[in-house]
Structure formats: C-alpha cells, structure tokens
C-alpha cells in the first residue's frame, strides 16, 4: 500500500548514513556540515527533539546515498559530541561508530579572521586545533566558540 511505502521510505534507507543521538536542535546544522540542502535529489529525513534516555532530546538524520568523510565526522563531533553514525548498505547497518573528538580539523572550516593567511590564495588548508570549548586557527590563533556551521568552507 502507498501508506506503507511512505512509512518505509521515512524509516529505512537502502544505502546511506543514519546519524543518531545528535544533540537536540542541531539536526539542521548537521545537514549544513554535510552540505545537504535537498537540491541533489537524494532523500533526506530529519527527526527533531525526539525523546532520548541518554540526551533528554535528540535529533536523527537519515541520508540516502551518502557516506561521511572523516572531515565531516570531525566537524560533526564538535556540534554533536554524542552522535552515533550508522552506515547502511542494502538496508543493513554495516558499520556503527560513535564520533570522536579530534585534536585537529583540517580543510573544513574557514578562519573568520579576514587578515589570516589561511584565507588567502596560498597552497595550504585551513587548520584548527580543538580546544576546551571551541576551535582555534593554527595560523592566526583566532578562536571560534559559537556557531561552527557558519564557518564551514564553501565547496
């Protein structure tokens, strides 16, 4: 039945990634990190503020046809430190992993300091050390504490 198909589409994906245990309210930022705005045509489902024993409220994101790169996982870990990542192939979870806080994120964030050499046309990637409650540019030492997704490098 059509209704069942709809149900199935929302709850199960054939190939892709399910990100669970995202800090409540951060799902749209997670999509931003993954560069997903719906224009590619792949199906994306988002559940926000679902009850969670561990987190109180959690968000879940399911993305058809996409597996996360290490860079994406690194930034993800900064805004959703409790997230778990499930890689799905042929409707089966083939890999399950918790995110880990990296010591460094490279080539994903753009330094907000316009006078930082990493924002120039030089052959280097941006590099940020992960500090207590934010990230810090390895070149100019500017600290980003809030709204990390706003600093994601445009592709």
């Amino acid at each position, binding site marked *: 039945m059509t209704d069942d198909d709809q149900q199935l589409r929302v709850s199960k994906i054939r190939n892709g990634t399910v990100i669970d245990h995202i800090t409540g309210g951060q799902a749209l930022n997670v999509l931003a990190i993954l560069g997903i705005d719906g224009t590619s045509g792949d199906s994306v489902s988002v559940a926000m503020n679902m009850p969670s024993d561990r987190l109180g409220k959690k968000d879940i994101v399911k993305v058809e046809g996409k597996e996360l790169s290490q860079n994406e996982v690194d930034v993800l870990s900064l805004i959703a430190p409790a997230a778990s990542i499930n890689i799905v192939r042929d409707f089966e979870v083939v890999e399950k992993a918790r995110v880990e806080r990296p010591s460094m994120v490279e080539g994903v964030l753009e330094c907000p*300091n316009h*006078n*930082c*050499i*990493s924002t*120039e*046309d*030089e*052959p*280097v990637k941006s590099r940020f050390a992960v*500090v207590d409650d934010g990230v*810090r*540019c*390895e*070149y*100019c*030492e*500017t*600290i980003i504490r809030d709204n990390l997704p706003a600093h994601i490098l445009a592709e």
Partner: protein
Amino acid sequence: MRHDHIISAKQLSRADIEAVLDHAADIAADPEAYAERHAGTLLGLLFFEPSTRTKMSFTTAMKRLGGDIVDMGSVESSSVKKGESLADTVRVVEGYADALVLRHPMEGSSKMASEFVDVPLVNAGDGAGQHPTQTLLDLYTIRENAGFDDLSIGIMGDLKYGRTVHSLAHALTNVDAHQHFISPESLQLPRSVRYDLHQEGAEVREHTELDEVLPELDVLYVTRIQRERFPDESEYREVAGQYQIDSETLAAAKDDLTVMHPLPRVDEIAHDIDDTEYATYFEQAHNGVPVRMALLDMLLEANE
C-alpha cells in the same frame, strides 16, 4: 635550544629563553669575539611591509656576526606585486640565503611560510600576530634591569591590538611575573590572549588607572594608543591623555622603576622622563642587536 624556526615566543620554554638571553649577554660583553663567526653567511630579508627599524636591527645583527644580507626590497618592486603566493616567494628566496627573516601584514604568514622552507625562518612580525624577537629583547631588558625574581610589571596602553603586549604577557608567565594590565575598558586584552594566560595559570589583573598599581611596580611597559581605535578625535584625546606619563606621574613610583616602550613613541612618555634613571626605552631598542645576534647564531649553529 632546538628549534628550526622562530615563529612565536610561545614556542620557547623558560630554558630556551634563558639560553638566548645568556648568549645575548655574552655577546654584548664581548662583541668582537663574534665578529667573524658567520663570515660568508647570508640572511634573506623579506619585508612585505615597511619596518625600517626592525630591518636595520636584523641587518646590523647579521653584519656584526660577520655575515651579510640579501634584501627582497619593497613589495612594489617584487614579483609579489604580480600576484605570486607567499609560499612560492619563500621557496624561491630560500635558495639565496642561509636563513630568512619575514615580516608580513597577515596573521599566520610566518607559520605558513615556515612549512615550505628548510632554512631557519624568523618571524619579524605577522600582522597583529607575533613578533618573537621583540619579546626576547623586551625580556632581556627586563632581566638586565629588574631581574625575573618576584617581578611586578605593569603593561599599559593599547592591550587589545598591541601584539607586542600579547607576546610579552605570555612570555612572562614563564617567570611567574605579577602582571598588571592598565588600559581603557575598550582596549583590554582580547579573548584569545586571556585564554592563553589562564591556560598558563597566570592571573590577569586589570586596571583602568595607573595610580592603582604604580607604587608596587618594578617595570612599567608603556605602549601607544592609536588614534584609529577611536571614532572621533576628542574621544581619542580624552582617553589617550589618561595613559600618558611624565616625571610628575612617576613621583609615586619606586626609585628603581624601569620604564620601557617598544618605540616609536609619540606623546605617551613625556620627554622630561628621558634623562631620568627610569628611562630604559633607548637601551631596550639597542638590546635588539645582541639579542638578534644571539638568536641568529644559535639558529645557524643548530642548522649547519
């Protein structure tokens, strides 16, 4: 000391700092002994913004060690003007020289440049970032005049934008100095610097008036408050005026207070202080030569 490049005073441990200052003291005591030490050595100077004083100091230091300099010249006359990246420029110039000195208007430029070269690179100022040889000559001057034991220092002026101040404050955590920061509220230390000082376990004592701490200071480090930090002339005059000192201001100070300034000054230290025992800013500027000689000598020896 084992460092390939000198990018930030933060990379230097207390032992590193003491080693450079000790060596500088040896050189200052007997400069003749070092006059031929680096004969034939070439120091490449890349100054992407004018800083005549720093450039002269490095030039003097290299020549006093028996070596010479090769100078990129002004940016207007170089290939940088044609859009060459800094990474390419330093990779070309490292072929001409045994060590490089870089001054560049952007933060992080020396750090990045050092990732592309094998010869030692010394940061001579990267925008609002670091200027480690200034910090070392400041430390040398402080040690010579006041010593590091139980040191009480007041740093006054533009603490928000003054990179000299940021670097010095961080370095002083190595010697557990009692640091007082004296500035208008709008020019207090920025967040990243506070973060670092807290990480090093230093207490940040802030004051809006010099009177509050002057009597207990061994060193008063004065910096310039710039006109462009204020929306209008009258506000600038009013605020900056509160952070100018003259011999009258210093009546409440210890007799052996050391007054320092990275120079150039405009009117923040009155000329009537110049002839007093307090005035140490010209000596401070001169100390740049033995300190840079010491640093270059150690870097070149380590990388031979």
